[in-house]
């Protein structure tokens, strides 16, 4: 597990108030949306805030988030390729 992945999981837990989870509870490739963690469209927007504040990545269309937020792994890949901080 890379440092970025672990850090990202911790940031997701904090941003979405998933207080009963630890990074170990979230598998890298498990779907974030759908049945998995019970997340909804507001959580997707929170993840957009997270990308902007933590990694300097700005998404302007919420539809872009669908692919990026498929799993922690896809999110980490996107961050590696696009981060400005």
């Amino acid at each position, binding site marked *: 597990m890379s440092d970025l992945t672990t850090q990202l999981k911790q940031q997701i837990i904090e941003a979405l108030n998933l207080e*009963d989870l630890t990074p170990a509870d979230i598998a890298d490739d498990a779907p974030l949306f759908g049945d998995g963690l*019970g997340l909804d469209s*507001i959580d997707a927007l*929170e993840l*957009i*805030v997270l990308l*902007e504040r933590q990694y300097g990545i700005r998404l302007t*269309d919420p539809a872009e988030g669908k692919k990026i937020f498929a799993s922690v792994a896809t999110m980490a890949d996107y961050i590696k390729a696009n981060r400005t901080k």
Partner: protein
Amino acid sequence: MLKSPIVITGYGILSAPGRGADALTEAFKANRSGIEPVRFLDTALTHIKVGEVKQSTASLAAELGVSDQSARLRTVVIGVAALHDALEMASLPADSLRDVDFISGTTVGGMDNTEKFFNRLAACEGKGSDADQLAYNDCGASTRLIATETGDFRSISTISTACSSAANAIALAAEMIESGRAECVVAGGSESLSKFHLNGFNSLMILSADRCRPFNADRDGINLGEGAAYLVMESLDHALARGATPLATLSGWGNACDAYHQTASSPSGEGPARSMKAALKRARLQPSDINYINAHGTGTENNDSSELAAMRAIFGSKLPCYSSTKPFTGHTTSSAGAIEAVVAIEAIRKGVIPANLGLNNPVEPENPPVERTVEGATINHVLTNSFGFGGNDSTLIFSRFSNNHVADDSSAARRRVFVDRASMISCCGAMTDDWLSASPQPSAEYKRAVEPDVKGLLSPGEARRMSRILKRALASSLSIVNKESLPEAIITATGLGCMENSEKFLNELYTYGEEMLKPTLFMQSTHNTIGSQIAITLGCHCYNTTYSHKSISWESALADAVNQIQTGQINSALVGAHDETTPITAGASMTVNPDSGFISEGSVAALISATADSSQCRPVEIVEVTTLYKPSASELHNIISRWSPDGLMLGLTGHSDNDSHYKSIIDQSASGAYILAWKPMSGSHFAASAQAFYAACKFLQAGSVAENYVWRNGTGPLNSILIINHADGLEWGLTLLAVKE
């Protein structure tokens, strides 16, 4: 038996296309939209378009000649313009309002003012020189200022259900007239743009940079707007007796909760379908009777699909002609229900069906909305929808005036109303009896409510986003109702709503600027977040509304519930009072009003019902609930002497400015009557009188009082208690409870 229809005898409106209904109708005819780039709101979000009232607050305030304080609040100034126009059209001079009630809907309230100095206030925990301005943040403060600029109404109240607030204000006015509690009510709403909610909607990523295009396949979001509209509503008998001209009839109204999500509408349109169905039933109309639907039509994909699904469920595959007028006005949120009520009345009176401006590629080609404004149409019935956050959905139906009295199938005898169960979370404890033996608290302190344990009541997934007030509201409510035995109405009172989240969102605004901010905070910052969250958690689609009017929020909510049970519309209601105080709001309160006792917060939930719980040996009946604005001493005394209660429970704090309002009541009370004080135990917050209600119920059930509540001891049995409460000596709430005979 026949009853008098509810007629509209005047209306005033100020919105982006201009002041007065003619300005709006002319805009429809000329396809002239009021949507433009931001001019008057100080915001960095200049790329989006809005429906602003095209006048600065200062200029409009000067034109209207309002006080300096009123001139600080755009919601108030816009509201005053529309209200004065409505009263003038109805020929109701300012000195004739003593028998007229005023109900206004708002959610922004004084936020456009608060957001200008909040960072300075936050830096000194509310105690700086700006403290007095925070006293104008709450929704009720705006309504009170609008009333102050107008005249002495009999009562004033505020409804805050986000984007359906004004529709619910109009529906409440109709209920009051229909049940005989009022003859004439002025109802509507006022809302100004604020940086707070503009950035809130920005955080939901649903603001459009172009003019909004509801029901168009390429729609990409909403334009926020601002404005106000008020209707003068009265029974036909009352209107004719005073020589007023009936202009239209309000024939139906419906309210339901989607109970799906705080910001998204359900794909099936369950809530909207239920509210439309309820309104049609009330109006005794068939779907085919509706000539025009003024849709909620905000311009989001989610609203389009949900509202269209609901319309199909009610009207079938061929919809009546419909349009959204938001491309003309913008989405004026809490005032939208009143602004679109004016659209409906104008359509009936002038035969103008407004276009769904900018239509080029309808989402439903087989059922497109009105493409071009139609003139010369014969319109008899118009249905108008307003949907709010949390799925607070409301529908109004306006009809061409006809002089026919309608059949009254409500039972003539009013049913009695009982307190079935209640629970309380206060500074003394969470759903415990610790309050009975608590010591009075010193003033100039701020005490939080005890936090309840929500494990077992809420899953971690349900609880993860909830702020303190939501957890408290859910814990107190779920201890007395559950999914297996749902209430038939959920009615909430809150003075400040979700204040902690509002402050956090303001803090985000100051910390990060007008960037993408945390949507969860905004989504759970409205006053109706509380009541709709209860409905979402319970899966309860019933009537759902929220009152937010200073210290009479609770009495306003209770009166609504009691009326609906008395008139046989429902058998039970969950009535809740939930307030959240923060260090900043507490600091400001103590600075501005050192007389109010210690500052607190709390939750009370009560299930009230048409049947007395047979397991209780002394069931408590709610005999009467009344709210008054600026009553004379003799009016208060007449009520008290008519009811002659065994005990009086008063909002005494031990501080002279506050207590002087109760002095003559105590002086003239029967010598053996118990005088009880709840605030030394509950502390002060807007909905604190609900804690008096809770305690009074317990005292009546026991037939005796707790020593810590006694201000002056009484003699004799305790079978009735009158709770009296005032807000700055202006609004008064009176609740008479008695042991069932």
